[in-house]
């Protein structure tokens, strides 16, 4: 069924999730539903048998064109906890390196009769491309694409904030570091704005802040001390060492001196502020060990919440696909 401008690709005719590609344009109600469903799945992780049978008989295929350990593992665990059969393909080390195109890889995976693909790719828009070309019954979940989006990371960050701060209405949230290259930052800005956070700040060196970032409803700070004043939540981003070579920053040491989160700088935020980080953390580059391991750090909680959020997204997308099939069938019968 063709999509139109009013109905984004990732929603079905009833406005339910069908693919999960980006947080851009998703309504607040849907984001809240994801968080509520994830909350319920958290309880499953605390049981002796950490499984529910929702996706029994379904096959989830994790297709990772780009390396990842944490995201891949939590998607695997999420699918397994929903009782799905799970295949993980590290395509970066196989077919594409032998010259196969994304399109051919996709067709081969389709032939394996998977019901859902979780896709990570270094190119922005890869998950959208696949969702547009895959057979209509297959759900696509974006596990991170280039600089564009990492929607499940965005939602697990929102779940972390909601569980520790209750709601978004009166919060000040600072996102610190390499905003320019960060798909996590972009997803977080979109989610925070949709969920009603009134004060979103991005903090970093000018060279690592994208031009026009204000369109996301954020305030820009190049001075860390100024930006951290009175915030409730600090989201530190990973400074990727490979990008240090690009001339955007003088050195890791210099970055830490100006933008690293130390115990002393933490004192500028509210006394009950929480510290988050999507991981893996670079100790002594973007964050001091005492802060990363300190009482206000919720970095490991984020990992736990990540499984529940991914369970919520996988089951909701599968459910949205089923609903769309039903609608299509009813429409065919009427014709």
């Amino acid at each position: 069924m063709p999509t139109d401008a009013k109905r984004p690709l990732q929603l079905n005719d009833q406005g339910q999730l069908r693919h999960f590609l980006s947080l851009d344009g998703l309504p607040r109600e849907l984001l809240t539903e994801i968080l509520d469903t994830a909350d319920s799945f958290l309880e499953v992780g605390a049981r002796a048998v950490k499984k529910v049978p929702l996706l029994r008989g379904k096959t989830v295929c994790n297709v990772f064109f780009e390396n990842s350990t944490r995201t891949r593992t939590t998607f695997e665990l999420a699918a397994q906890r929903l009782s799905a059969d799970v295949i993980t393909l590290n395509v970066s080390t196989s077919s594409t390196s032998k010259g196969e195109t994304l399109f051919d890889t996709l067709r081969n995976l389709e032939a394996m009769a998977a019901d859902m693909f979780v896709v990570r790719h270094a190119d922005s828009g890869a998950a959208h491309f696949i969702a547009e070309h895959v057979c209509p019954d297959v759900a696509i979940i974006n596990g991170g694409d280039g600089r564009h989006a990492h929607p499940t990371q965005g939602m697990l960050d929102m779940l972390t904030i909601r569980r520790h701060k209750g709601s978004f209405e009166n919060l000040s949230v600072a996102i610190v570091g390499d905003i320019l290259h960060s798909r996590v930052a972009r997803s977080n800005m979109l989610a925070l704005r949709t969920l009603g956070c009134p004060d979103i700040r991005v903090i970093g060196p000018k060279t690592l802040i994208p031009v026009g970032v204000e369109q996301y409803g954020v305030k820009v700070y190049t001075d860390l001390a100024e930006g951290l004043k009175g915030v409730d939540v600090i989201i530190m981003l990973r400074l990727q060492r490979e990008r240090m070579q690009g001339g955007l920053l003088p050195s890791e040491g210099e970055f830490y001196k100006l933008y690293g989160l130390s115990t002393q700088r933490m004192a500028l935020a509210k006394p009950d502020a929480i510290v988050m980080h999507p991981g893996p953390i670079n100790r002594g580059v973007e964050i001091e060990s005492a802060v990363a391991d300190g009482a206000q750090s919720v970095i490991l909680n984020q990992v736990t919440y990540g499984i529940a959020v991914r369970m919520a997204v996988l089951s909701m997308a599968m459910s949205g696909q089923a609903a769309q099939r039903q609608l299509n069938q009813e429409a065919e019968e009427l014709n």
Partner: protein
Amino acid sequence: MNLPNPAELLPRMASDLQAHLKARAITEPRFVGIRTGGVWVAQALLEQLGESAPLGILDVSFYRDDFTQNGLHPQVRPSELPFEIEGQHLVLIDDVLMSGRTVRAALNELFDYGRPASVTLVCLLDLNARELPVRPDVVGATLSLEARERVKLLGPAPLTLERQDLASPA
């Protein structure tokens, strides 16, 4: 046919349940209500029994066999079982028994928490429309409805039963 008043059914259900447990020498049962109506009936039943035991709450949404047809209920809330399941005698309580699929889902979920010593099933109403071999040990009333009819429990206080006609517009 008039629908019964739950308040009139509950005293006899409580006495039938006591007799059932006594006959099986069960002295310390654990009570579990299926959300939402089953929890209301369980609370009313515990009051009748003069019991102040903690009540377990099951939400069977993740265990339903119609997920691929009907999808996930948007307001799933976590189950709450404030006691061990392993080796315990459970009293599972629901409001209306129709196909038996909700009870099947509840049993599947309970067994994911542990292996109970026994499960006694209590239902306020049995609609005599079972699709699975699931039969209550204690029941308030048995009704036979037309295929297009359903019964809904309204609550939590007072508990009342409402007849619904699927053919009529909402």
